């Protein structure tokens, strides 16, 4: 009989009948007025190979020219390009964001092609989650950029899905509402189209890909939606050019053998797509995105971060407590890391110091060695010089002696001569 138990069970209420008109039947109208004043927002993601007709179909769907330029086939990676437009019809304002893939299906190795798309969708969910978790948040004026619908353009080969299509759709089916469409459907005959649609749906079912099913819970649209569910995927043709048929100008493609009218239901399923996507189920798409895909993302993300709804003792744990605990943990870890880094720094400094000391010592040794060598050489040179000087002095002495001898010889010779002369004279 704890307080929490009582709070959980809804109070049994009795239904009363009114005796007059109260007026709360205007509640939906008040809601509608409010939301009309605010304006609506819708985000479409178009995935398909380059040149398959994504931009043209968007132009045709929304009856405007979104100024898209042709992409090249040589992008090294898949990229996404988002553009936001403000449209108005009667007094309803729509903020439409169209996200196109650029370079999808062009690379030789397409194993990573789905990753940029998944990353983009996750990023939008993440920014919404961050906004939701803020302390001071402004959700009503937040520009919701989460992807509400994903149009996947299937190439009209007439056989089956491509392997890339299957791989990509499997990765996306739990993150976004996938609506597959067969692009450039004016190249498939009626009988081929029937077989193609059956083949595609059977492949999707057998591989467990969950595409968006139009909702059947509302009686007013349940019948239409059931019929449409059986016609998936829609085979569409897009065109912004107008051709005169009968006495009207209609959007069409002119061939030598006939004119394919975009809005003719026997020619293609464009009208059905427009009705289903925009007229009938746009709000449901937004709701599904918020309640199913976003909640799944949020749950996974928070579980990753370590939040749980119930303690190990299965007592409900409030977000705040968990958050506090997490914060403490985080701070402790920070401190520990800081300590570690400081220690590592000190150690490194020591190492470097010892290294430098070693090298200094080595240099000193070398210097001493060189000095010794130098001194040795100098001594040797000194020795040599001394020897040389000795040699020189001895040489000098010898020379002096030799000169003396010569001088003596001369004088003695002169005496001898004189003697001879003298003797001869006499």
């Amino acid at each position, binding site marked *: 009989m704890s307080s929490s138990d009582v709070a959980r069970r809804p109070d049994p209420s009795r239904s009363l009948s009114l005796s007059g008109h109260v007026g709360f039947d205007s509640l939906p109208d008040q809601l509608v007025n409010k939301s009309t004043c605010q304006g609506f927002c819708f985000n479409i993601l178009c995935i398909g*190979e*380059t*040149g*398959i*007709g994504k931009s043209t179909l968007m132009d045709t769907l929304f009856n405007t020219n979104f100024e898209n330029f*042709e*992409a*090249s*086939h*040589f992008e090294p990676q898949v990229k996404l390009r988002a553009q936001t437009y403000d449209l108005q019809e009667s007094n309803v304002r729509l903020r439409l964001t169209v996200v196109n893939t650029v370079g999808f299906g*062009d*690379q*030789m*190795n*397409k*194993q990573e092609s789905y990753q940029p798309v998944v990353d983009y969708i996750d990023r939008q969910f993440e920014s919404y989650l961050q906004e939701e978790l803020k302390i001071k948040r402004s959700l009503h004026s937040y520009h919701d950029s989460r992807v509400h619908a994903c149009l996947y353009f299937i*190439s*009209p*080969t*007439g*056989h*089956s*899905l*491509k*392997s*890339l*299509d*299957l*791989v990509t759709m499997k990765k996306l089916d739990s993150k976004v509402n996938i609506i597959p469409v067969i*692009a*450039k459907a*004016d*190249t498939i*005959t*009626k009988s081929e189209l029937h077989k193609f649609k059956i083949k595609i749906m059977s*492949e999707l079912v*057998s*591989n467990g890909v969950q595409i968006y099913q139009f909702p059947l819970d509302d009686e007013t649209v349940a019948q239409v939606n059931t019929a449409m569910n059986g016609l998936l995927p829609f085979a569409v043709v897009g065109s912004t050019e107008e051709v005169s048929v009968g006495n009207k100008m209609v959007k069409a*493609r*002119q*061939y*030598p*053998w*006939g*004119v*394919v*009218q975009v809005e003719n239901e*026997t*020619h293609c399923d464009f009208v059905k797509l427009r009705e289903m996507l925009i007229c009938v189920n746009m709000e449901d798409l937004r709701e599904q995105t918020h309640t199913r895909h976003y909640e799944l993302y949020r749950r996974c993300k928070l579980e990753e971060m370590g939040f749980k709804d119930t303690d190990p003792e299965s007592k409900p744990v409030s977000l705040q407590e968990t958050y506090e605990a997490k914060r403490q943990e985080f701070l402790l870890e920070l401190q520990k890391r800081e300590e570690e880094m400081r220690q590592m720094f000190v150690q490194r400094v020591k190492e470097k110091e010892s290294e430098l000391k070693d090298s200094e010592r080595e240099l000193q040794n*070398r210097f001493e060695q*060189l000095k010794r060598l130098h001194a040795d050489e100098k001594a040797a040179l000194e020795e040599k010089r001394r020897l040389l000087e000795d040699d020189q002095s001895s040489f000098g002495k010898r020379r002096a002696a030799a000169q003396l001898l010569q001088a003596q010889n001369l004088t003695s010779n002169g005496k001898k001569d004189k003697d001879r002369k003298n003797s001869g004279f006499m």
Partner: protein
Amino acid sequence: MTANTRYRSRVLRSDDVEEKEYVGFATLPNQVHRKSVKKGFDFTLLVAGESGLGKSTLVNSLFLTDLHKDRKLLNAEERISQTVEITKHTVDIEEKGVKLKLTIVDTPGFGDAVNNTECWRSIEGYIDHQFEQYFRDESGLNRKNIQDNRVHCCLYFIPPFGHGLRPVDIEFMKALQEKVNVVPLISKADCLTPGEIKKLKERLREEIDKYGIKIYQFPDCDSDEDEEFKQKDKELKESTPFAVIGSNAVVEVKGQRVRGRLYPWGIVEVENQAHCDFVKLRTMLIRTHMNDLKEVTCDVHYENYRAQCIQTMTRCVCARAKVNAENRVESPIPLFPMATPDADTEKLIKMKDEELRRMQQMLQKMQQQMHEQDL
């Protein structure tokens, strides 16, 4: 016969028939015709392109037969990591006494997997294998019944859904341009309006020039052909790459039964020149240029292959002769070039030498620097 009389006999005028100089070799073309009819012709066509582009349907339309009676198409999940196979279908067809042995080589799985790097290797290998076999047969002793399985023409299907060539198209055509006559086609052209077809063709021609892809070029017609032929030839050349549509079904148009595709908004006739270039392709491929395709294959692609083969062989033999001079093997039967290990190791040795030299230079420089520092 003197020179004068020989000159006069060249021009056969109707009144010369009774003349003494009538020789009669003007019937040579007829003789050639008779002999070739007796021998029969053969033609090998390779079709390549992603699945779902209408290759089989086009081949059926071209040769008015049903070649792929019960083929199994793979599911998407089976194709995620599919490898490229090569399948061959051979049929014998006859028209007015002329027999044609037609071989269609199909390449299921090309470009279908998620990772398509080097998916053309098996196709390249197949073409090389045919060349090799023919080379072997040609150099053999008994050459009576040589089967010519060489690929004479490759039809490459470009999808019309994009803006031009894609990386896989460029890689494929560049890999095969030296080995086979590549004829690019725009497939499933019934999804393009005439204006779009013109733009796409210009784009493709530009990109083929830009990337230097050598596709099959029509030979220029002789200057003494008549004007009509020259005009047709010019038109043919200006409408490449051909935008084609194929169909297995026959529909009724204005009381006539023609091959076509039935749409709620009209009927596309395959053989209507205003609808697509199918007729031009058929004319080019079968009626006028089939022999030229075979000749270019024999004279250009095969000869290139053969010359390369012989070059690698002589290098191999020379290297081997250098190594063991005593055991010189006189082989009339040419040995086939395996990987030439000698040439490769030589290159490796040279590279290593270079590296060593560079490292020695660096060491010397460092030593010098240290020496300068010390002093």
